[in-house]
């Protein structure tokens, strides 16, 4: 990043050092071109948006379900609306963003397929990350304990989890096929959030990835 792009007026004032981004968010940020228009769906407290605004000079908007998250964002000068992916994407016109980001949220939506379709209607590209239910630890947990995996993957019991549509990397690849969209880029991450490069269509990726991160576009590649 050059000094010039770092000086873009950001909500944090630009003077303070940027806090480091969470591993998977840093990977998302790397995929985004400077100066583009970005919608972050499920933006939490706005870490990614603040970073992209400050460092890449993007025109960023967000959607967040929790009041505390939205308030934190708006307090920091970010343009964020309270809402969710299932009900609030329909209002946006086609092609209103260069990128729409859905980070660790797909599994909590009621209609993941419709949501992904909306992402690619609104944005030229969609960046989606999600926990991989095909990871070997999940499989072993189910195989040997016969109970739904809780632990450090999902942190909720099956009866109160917001994660109602869990999928594997292969499931997601199959969905992109069904939707006729192009996987422009894919990254697999281990449970520490470190990226490693494996073809997401391969058995190994589906077994070793704790998370999948995909950049999709409408165009067939």
């Amino acid at each position, binding site marked *: 990043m050059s000094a010039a792009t770092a000086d873009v*007026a950001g*909500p944090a004032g630009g003077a303070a050092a940027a806090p480091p981004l969470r591993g998977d968010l840093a990977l998302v940020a790397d995929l985004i071109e400077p100066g583009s228009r970005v919608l972050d769906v499920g933006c939490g407290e706005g870490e990614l948006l603040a970073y992209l605004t400050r460092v890449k000079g993007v025109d960023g908007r967000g959607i967040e379900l929790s009041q505390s998250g939205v308030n934190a*964002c*708006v*307090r920091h*000068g*970010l343009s964020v*609306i309270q809402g969710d992916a299932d009900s609030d994407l329909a209002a946006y*016109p086609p092609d209103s963003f260069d990128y729409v980001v859905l980070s660790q949220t797909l599994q909590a939506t009621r209609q993941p397929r419709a949501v992904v379709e909306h992402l690619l209607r609104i944005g030229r590209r969609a960046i989606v990350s999600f926990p991989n239910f095909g990871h070997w630890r999940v499989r072993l947990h189910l195989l040997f304990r016969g109970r739904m995996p809780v632990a450090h993957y999902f942190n909720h019991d099956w009866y109160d989890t917001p994660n109602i549509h869990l999928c594997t990397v292969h499931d997601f690849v199959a969905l992109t096929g069904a939707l006729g969209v192009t996987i422009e880029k894919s990254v697999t991450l281990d449970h520490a959030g470190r990226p490693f490069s494996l073809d997401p269509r391969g058995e190994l990726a589906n077994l070793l990835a704790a998370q999948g991160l995909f950049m999709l576009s409408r165009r067939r590649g």
Partner: protein
Amino acid sequence: MITDRVHGDDAAAARRPGHRLAVAEPLALDSGATLNACTIAYQTYGTLNADKSNAILICHALTGDQYPAEPHPVTGKPGWWSALAGPGKVLDTDRYFLIATNVLGGCMGSSGPKETDPATGKPWGLAFPVITIADMVRAQKRLIDHLGIETLFAVIGGSMGGMQVLEWAAAYPDRVFAALPIATAARHSAQNIAFHEVGRQAIMADPDWCQGNYLAQGRNPSRGLAVARMAAHITYLSEPALHRKFGRQLRNREAVTYGFDADFEVESYLRHQGSSFVDRFDANSYLYITRACDYFDLAAEHGGVLANAFRGTRTRFCVVSFTSDWLYPTAENRAIVHALNAAAANVSFVEIETDKGHDAFLLDEPEFFAVLRGFLDGCAQHRGLPLR
């Protein structure tokens, strides 16, 4: 010709403090009528900076006025938004130049049914033309032009004030840098109109209303106006808030009296709300202003599509609703947000958790204030205003 004066020299103006802008250019109204001249009563707080970029227009609600940040000249009570506006507060008078007007049709010095019709020398009464939210905003724009302010840093208001904010953003998008419509709607619902009609009927059923001619006859439909206020006041609260405040508590008595005196605290409270209201408000103004709200339908003004009202806007929006507000519920505010999204506008939206009902926008709600402060700080930075 435009005349601006503090403490006017005519008797009506001298009764009350503050600024009066006399606009001699005719004002064409939505109804087709024209006001040949009009007066806009307004107050300002803080200092307009050299490049006139720090002005915030505060739009008041149905029964508000131009005194958000100072004691009310009639009641002596703190300004209706004194929790929000003042030195060091969210609407910081050390930083911003606040402008508050009395709406057209009001009764605190702006042209309205209570003021004198220059053509007859008598109070306007029902001869005053019916006005709309857009008419109110047209009148405010005359003032902003007069003050030489090219772009308002922000326009903010709750309830009917929020309708004016939306109208400002739709009608004069290049004059509004940031818009904060709060606890409002882009159109009045059937339920909103219904409640207003109850209030109007209460006023018109009072024999002292005299077909609107009470001022000339030296009478005042205070009972009708008080009932209108009582009914409306219920809609500003929530069931849980009323219950928390009053429950079924009895008023200074051990048991019910088997009569129609105010046995219950809530009755006494409402009666007080009604009777204190009539001291500061004009019954005909209440008719005109409720009508203006009822007629408001921003989408209808733009081909039936609300998003069309905001196409191409560069204004930054912050929409706020309150969970227990059933008068202008979150769904109505969210409809505004969706229209802004459809117009690809820059919008923030927060629903504040509270049990205080519609009135929450007037109260000290820390989360609400924190959101407004953050939004305004972000806008100030984009506008190049000095940091606090």
